């Protein structure tokens, strides 16, 4: 409840939440909105927008609107799948490192740092090139494998700051095992950080998955926004003036990405009061400013 109220009281969070809810609804019930089969190549090619085909048709004669609506599901599955998995792995590695300390902390931390600095997208490209025409599950796996490190680092430093708290000492004295302390005692205290990390990871999953599909490293027969862009680029839709084929899926990606980014930004503000809009604080700062100008 507190969570919902926080979202409701912040304009950015409200916008992001509504956007995300719309996309989730589209992904769950695409048939309610689009009546065409997204893969059927049955219409005249490269039609402009009309009442029949709201966003026109593709170079293969598919309905662009239906593709955009049905494509939502794949993108969301990747976003939530890779976002959750990466956050989970990060939590396990980061918090374990901080909790165990000493040698294991150094090893895990070094491992995290190495993964962190190897350039992500080129690595994704190389892996996908070897896998060839990766489907949804492979994409999620690859994005997870490459995307957890930044979050792990964040969570580690947060956990480090908790290390000497009394409730952890109490758990230790009770003789609890490490995994119990980590999952039951430490992780619940970091919920807001975990949510923020999930939102970031989901955003990157959307962007990277779409990018990989766009350069032809996804499954070319899947219905997803990145694949739509791939076909638009392949058929030179922009140069030929069929701009909707590229504008629509790209716009969808941007909107979904914006939903995650806005929620994340709002979470920063909720979690870190210093970043909130300043209206209320101004009175306190003013006298000092006047002092400096005098």
């Amino acid at each position, binding site marked *: 409840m507190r969570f919902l109220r926080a979202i409701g009281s912040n304009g*950015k969070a409200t916008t992001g939440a509504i956007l995300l809810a719309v996309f989730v609804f589209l992904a769950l019930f695409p048939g309610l909105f689009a009546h065409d089969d997204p893969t059927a190549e049955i219409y005249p090619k490269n039609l402009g927008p009309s009442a029949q085909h709201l966003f026109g048709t593709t170079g293969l004669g598919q309905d662009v609107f239906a593709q955009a609506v049905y494509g939502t599901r794949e993108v969301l599955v990747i976003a939530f799948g890779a976002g959750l998995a990466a956050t989970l792995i990060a939590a396990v590695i980061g918090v374990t490192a901080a909790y165990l300390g000493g040698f294991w902390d150094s090893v895990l931390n070094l491992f995290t740092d*190495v993964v962190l*600095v190897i350039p992500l997208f080129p*690595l994704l490209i190389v892996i996908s090139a070897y896998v*060839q025409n990766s489907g949804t599950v492979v994409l999620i796996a690859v994005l997870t494998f490459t995307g957890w490190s930044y979050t792990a680092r964040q969570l580690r430093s947060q956990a480090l700051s908790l290390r000497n708290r009394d409730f952890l000492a109490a758990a230790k004295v009770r003789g609890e095992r490490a995994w119990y302390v980590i999952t039951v005692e430490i992780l619940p205290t970091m919920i807001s950080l975990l949510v923020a990390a999930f939102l970031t990871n989901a955003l990157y999953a959307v962007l990277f998955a779409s990018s990989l599909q766009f350069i032809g490293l996804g499954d070319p027969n899947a219905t997803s926004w990145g694949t739509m862009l791939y076909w638009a680029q392949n058929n030179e839709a922009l140069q030929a*003036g069929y701009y909707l084929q590229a504008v629509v899926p790209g716009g969808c990606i941007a909107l979904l990405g*914006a939903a995650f980014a806005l929620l994340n930004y709002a979470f920063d503000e909720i979690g870190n009061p210093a970043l909130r809009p300043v209206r209320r604080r101004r009175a306190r700062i003013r006298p000092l400013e006047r002092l400096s100008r005098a």
Partner: protein
Amino acid sequence: MRFVLRRAGFFLLTLWAAVTLNFFLPRMMPGNPAVAMMAKFRGRISGQELTTLETIFGVNSHQSLPAQYVHYLGDMATGNFGTSLFFFPSPVSQVVRTAIFWTLGLVGITTILAFALGTGVGIVAAWRRGGLTDSIAPPLLVIASAIPYFWVGMMFILIFGVKLQWLPWSGGADITATPGWSMDYVVNVLEHAILPALALLITTIGTWTLTMRNNMVTTLAEDYVRMARAKGLPSSRIMLDYAARNAVLPNLTGFAMSLGFIVGGAILIEYVFNYPGVGYMLLQAVENEDFPLMQALFLLITVAVLVAILLADIATAIFDPRTRSAQ
């Protein structure tokens, strides 16, 4: 000094990790895709080159895995990346050299510009909390950070290339132009760089602004800023020397860290604009299953990012004495 040595050690470790990834990835995949690729090119390559490729990918090899690995490390250390299959018979290192020139020009300059501009806007936004810049820039940039790089490029092509026909949108220069230091050619190259550079600038500037603004908000609340104000120092001095100087330090590390992301975005921008740089070549190599070229480019990109990180670390150590003693 110890700090720098530590970072140099980290540099070597990461480099080794990247090389090892390169070695094991094709071998881990079901059916070793490199074997299929080699089979395809069998008739066209001969003798020496074939042997090099076989050691790189472990095809037809009678050596044990550890022996292959040692051999591979040796090849990488001596810069023997094998022969490009697509640009046959050029060795990979030669193919790569021309691409670097284009990427450094486009991505290098644009990245530095984005960092400088983004940081500047961030400083102003934080200094004038709640002012015009502060209320417009951050939300706008948050949304901009959610837009795929390549799509911005596509929209630029659509608007400024196809519709308005202001600027060229394909390649690094006209094919008909003769390379050289003539005025015509330089102008031609610059014209071709404008759209991809703008696309890259717009999509990367947001990160710098946001992180700089948020760091700056934190440092502005520090006691030493209060102290500076109490002393009556001029505003510009407090803003730049006191608050911004300390706020930019974490950003410097962030700058290096996110270079990996920038390189990734640059790959897509180069692809969309057919810009003949490292990223475009990487994707061409992928498309043509030219795995030796792909591996070499991946390593090259990794090394570039690592060097940048090392430089940023050293710069941080110079500007921020605290890091030197901390570890």
